[in-house]
């Protein structure tokens, strides 16, 4: 029996055993070109001219975008592609923030179209038209991954400093897919700061096919990369709406200062006066025409150079179907006295914590699958990220995972290794749910 590497070498050698037919490939190409030319002449003459003319008239009358598109599409049969998107096209025509870019990129026989975008200085929304000939089985899904942007004014690559998310594309779905790119604010952990979206840039993205229900590392089936060059219209300045709404919770003031409205999203900025003697953190929802959307977890309070404690919440705009009314709902909060920020020492051998934290007890330290597991029992409910871990020199230790149980038990898992000094801080106070949420009406925005 041959060894693996002998089989491998044979396989490689076999690939260099070029058949005679390989050297006739260009002859076969010429034959095929002649055949295809004959076929096209026959096809073009068979389009029912009455039906095509009728469709042409309807679309020209109802769509400004279609009228602009006609200049770019020479073949009458292409009209049918636009008809599919009538609903969103109609809305897009009415949305003054849409930029019609009409770009296409190819990878082999796949053609990915980017008909339009919405953009501002901090955000980019791509409306992609998935290739017609994508092959997908029922247990497969495509997602769009943004690889990088390259600022064409200075050739700088932008590969981080932004969040991106896309929906997933499965068999039978509408081929128009939306991808959002948001540039991060300052001070976010592990994200570099970018100045925002350039006006002229190259965008590299990939269509990644996965097997559904598997680990992303194991389930990746294919990657097809595409590049677009965009030259956008100058970005509109955001509109600032002063709110000046003050809320008081347990004696702590929160000032809802203003809403900054971009075409793609709005930012609600609120401040916590220095005079507050506790750090209060809010869990918010967005109410739009009676429907409620959670605005994620407790956002981090950022302390700015001017001493102000400020928090910014982002709300994505519904550019195709703006609501008639909007409110922010304060549903719950955490509170923690400002003078309680000291470090607590962990003794791994004795499994103790000193000094003790009022209302939080270190119950156990155990080892599990290469991880150290810390079990804390509390007397009240806390949200996630109750505890942060540090080395003696102040270096942050990654928490691999955390869990909580309904009996106020909180578990934290960090890498199991030798720690000379291990310290923790209590990052957040207990959580209280408001019996009656506090509602703050906000403008609908751009």
């Amino acid at each position, binding site marked *: 029996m041959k060894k693996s590497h002998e089989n*491998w070498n044979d396989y*490689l050698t076999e690939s260099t055993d*070029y*058949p005679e037919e390989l050297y006739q490939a260009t002859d076969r190409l010429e034959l095929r070109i002649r055949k295809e030319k004959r076929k096209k002449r026959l096809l073009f003459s068979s389009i029912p001219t009455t039906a095509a003319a009728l469709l042409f008239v309807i679309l020209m009358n109802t769509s400004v975008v279609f009228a602009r598109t006609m200049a770019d599409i020479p073949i009458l049969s292409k009209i049918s592609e636009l008809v599919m998107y009538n609903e969103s096209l109609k809305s897009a025509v009415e949305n003054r923030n849409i930029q*019609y870019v009409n770009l296409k990129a190819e990878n*082999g*026989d796949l053609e990915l179209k980017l008909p339009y975008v919405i953009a501002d200085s901090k955000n980019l929304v791509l409306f992609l038209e998935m290739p017609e000939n994508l*092959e997908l089985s029922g247990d497969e899904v495509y997602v769009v991954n943004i690889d990088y942007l390259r600022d064409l004014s200075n050739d700088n690559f932008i590969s981080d400093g932004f969040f991106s998310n896309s929906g997933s594309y499965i068999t039978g779905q509408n081929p128009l897919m939306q991808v959002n790119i948001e540039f991060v604010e300052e001070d976010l952990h592990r994200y570099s700061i970018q100045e925002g979206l350039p006006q002229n840039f190259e965008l590299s993205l990939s269509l990644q096919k996965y097997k559904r229900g598997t680990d992303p590392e194991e389930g990746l089936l294919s990657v097809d990369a595409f590049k677009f*060059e965009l*030259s956008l219209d100058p970005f509109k300045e955001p509109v600032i709406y002063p709110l000046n709404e003050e809320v008081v919770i347990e004696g702590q003031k929160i000032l809802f200062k203003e809403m900054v409205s971009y075409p793609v999203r709005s930012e609600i900025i609120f401040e916590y006066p220095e005079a507050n003697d506790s750090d209060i953190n809010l869990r918010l929802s967005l109410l739009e025409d009676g429907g409620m959307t959670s605005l994620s977890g407790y956002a981090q309070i950022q302390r700015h150079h001017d001493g102000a404690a400020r928090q910014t919440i982002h709300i994505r705009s519904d550019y195709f179907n703006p609501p008639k009314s909007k409110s922010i709902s304060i549903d719950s909060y955490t509170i923690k006295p400002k003078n309680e920020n000291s470090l607590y020492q962990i003794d791994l051998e004795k499994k103790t914590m000193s000094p003790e934290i009022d209302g939080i007890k270190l119950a156990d330290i155990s080892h599990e699958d290469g991880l150290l597991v810390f079990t804390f029992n509390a007397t009240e409910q806390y949200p996630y990220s109750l505890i942060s871990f540090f080395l003696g020199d102040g270096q942050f230790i990654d928490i691999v995972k955390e869990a909580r149980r309904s009996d106020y038990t909180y578990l934290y898992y960090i890498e199991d290794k030798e720690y000379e000094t291990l310290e923790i801080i209590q990052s957040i106070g207990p959580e209280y749910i408001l019996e009656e949420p506090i509602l703050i009406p906000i403008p609908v925005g751009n």
Partner: protein
Amino acid sequence: MGYFNRKGIEKDAYIRLIEQYRETMYRIAYGYLGSEGEALEAIDEAIYLGYAKRKTVKEPDFAKTWLTRILINECYRMLRKRGHLSFYEIPPDVVDEREEPISLSTKLALQSLPEDLRQVIILRYFADMTIRETAEFLGIPDGTVSSRARKALSILRIELMEEEGEKIYEKKS
């Protein structure tokens, strides 16, 4: 308003490109498909698709890279169409007759590799690309190319000396 930069390749230049590059294309297709007939089919289709889209090539200097991508996508299409073949389903006429037939498990093992690993192996060992060239083609760092190659070879249970430019096989002239 966005724009699409059109440079393109003239027909004569495209034909010359095919004549220079066809042997590399064959090795790549053979690496993916493991069969002379299918490799030729993939090449014919890729050459035709490339011809049809030759005027859309943005950077003619990178035409080989562009054509390689077309070819690889065509190989994927054929593999998907073929479906998953078990050892017992492969008809005898697909196997090349030699005194000691190449183990089908090597071919199937390569076809069963995760795509990101298989790409690196095909480009490095069948297309004879350097680490740098492979990294540029795939848009990944050089180190990632090396680590994926090592991982793939260990899955295939092959131990090779991974030195730049050195290959442990002989080419037939």
